[in-house]
Structures are given as structure tokens and as C-alpha cells.
């Protein structure tokens, strides 16, 4: 279920030529450790896109 939800989000992120991560086979390189993702963004001086999801 969660996997399906991520796939769906990735698909829409890649829609319309956005192709997030297209040079890596069209897959979105999600950072799955949120704490690390925020540290990484700070370290690299980049903005983040936080995708909150859950399977209940």
C-alpha cells in the first residue's frame, strides 16, 4: 500500500516532463530517513520537498 502510494507520487512528480531524477532511470531518489534528508538539505543549501504519507 505504501509502496503503491510512493509510486503514485513519483509518477505524478515525473509527469509533464518534470522527470525528477530522470538521469537515473526516471526514478525519484527519495531520502527515506527524514532526519537525514533535512540535514542533507542544510548541508547542500537546497530546498526540500517533504512528502508525508501513511498507510492506515
Amino acid at each position, binding site marked *: 500500500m505504501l509502496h503503491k502510494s510512493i509510486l503514485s507520487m513519483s509518477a*505524478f512528480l515525473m509527469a509533464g516532463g518534470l522527470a525528477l531524477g530522470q538521469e537515473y532511470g526516471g526514478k525519484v531518489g527519495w531520502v527515506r530517513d527524514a532526519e537525514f534528508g533535512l540535514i542533507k538539505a542544510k548541508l547542500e543549501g537546497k530546498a*526540500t*520537498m517533504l512528502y508525508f504519507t*501513511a498507510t492506515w
Partner: protein
Amino acid sequence: MAAAQRIVPVLVDCSERGQNEDLLKKYGVQGFPTVIYADPDGKQIKEMDSRDAGTIVKDIDNLSKKHPGRPSIWQSSTKAAVDLGKQVKKPVAVYLAEPKEDLAKLTAKLMKDLGDRKTKFLWVLELGKDDVLKKYAVDAAPAVVVLDPKADEPLAKIPVKADDKADVLNKALDDAAKQFKK
């Protein structure tokens, strides 16, 4: 540059009770899925209010103009580095940092010390938490695991000690590079 390199896409899984609760509170998330854009300091800029691809592209363009990033040796993820390594025939060096390590200082040190090893390898940063150490079968962080993108077994596992001189890591990296078959 592709969008994935202009921003950091973070998946915040809240499936289990209490999981990432601090982030849910911080960003006031009320339901799922929710997408929040934040600046490099984690301050919320806006919530994604449209799933129209054109709007998302525009949002990412605006964010990346405002926060263009700074030079870094790090690839976006281990998977991305391995995929790229297969294409460009380079080994991947995964730096497993101590969770409390000052990563800005570490990056600056590596940029200074590694010389041409910065580009000989594709570098990835991971936090050396228990599950990550287990994944790479490494006893402790900091350490560097050198991967051949086309092989299952790592080329080398290099423990890093705080008082080691740069030469120690560099020599171990050079030895690993010699084992890498293009």
C-alpha cells in the same frame, strides 16, 4: 540540471504510531498525503497546493533559484550513485558518518583532503545509524564502504579514525580503486 538534484525529495513515512510525529507537529500536517516545501533550514515555505505538473515545475524552479545549493561532493542517494556508477564506470564510496558528526565540517575536510579521489569515486553520505551499519556489515561509524556498482560484494570497508591523517584514507581508497574493474 534535473529536478532531483535541485531539491532534496524526502519521504516522511508516518505509518506507525508516533513515527515522525515531531515533523507532523512542526509542519502542522493534518492528513495524508501532504507535500510541504521547506528551505534549507527546514522552515516551511509552502504546502503543495496543486498536482498540476506545470505548477510543480514552476515551484521547483522558483525554489532552486532561491536556494541553488552549494558545491558538494555528495550524490543524491546511494541508489542514484550506483546507477550512475554503472553508466560512467566509477566506484561508489559511501561515507558512513557518525550521527552527531558536524557534516558541514566533514564535507569541507573531504573536499580539501581527497584530491582527485573526489571525482574518481562517486561519493554518497549516509548517517551511520544501527540499521545502516547492519546493511553494510560495518561495526562502527565513521567508515567508508567502497562499492563496485556492478558487484554484490564491496571492494573495501575502511574504518575512519578522527586522528588519522588524510593519507591513511587516501591510500585505502587508492587500493580499492585498483581492484575496481571497468
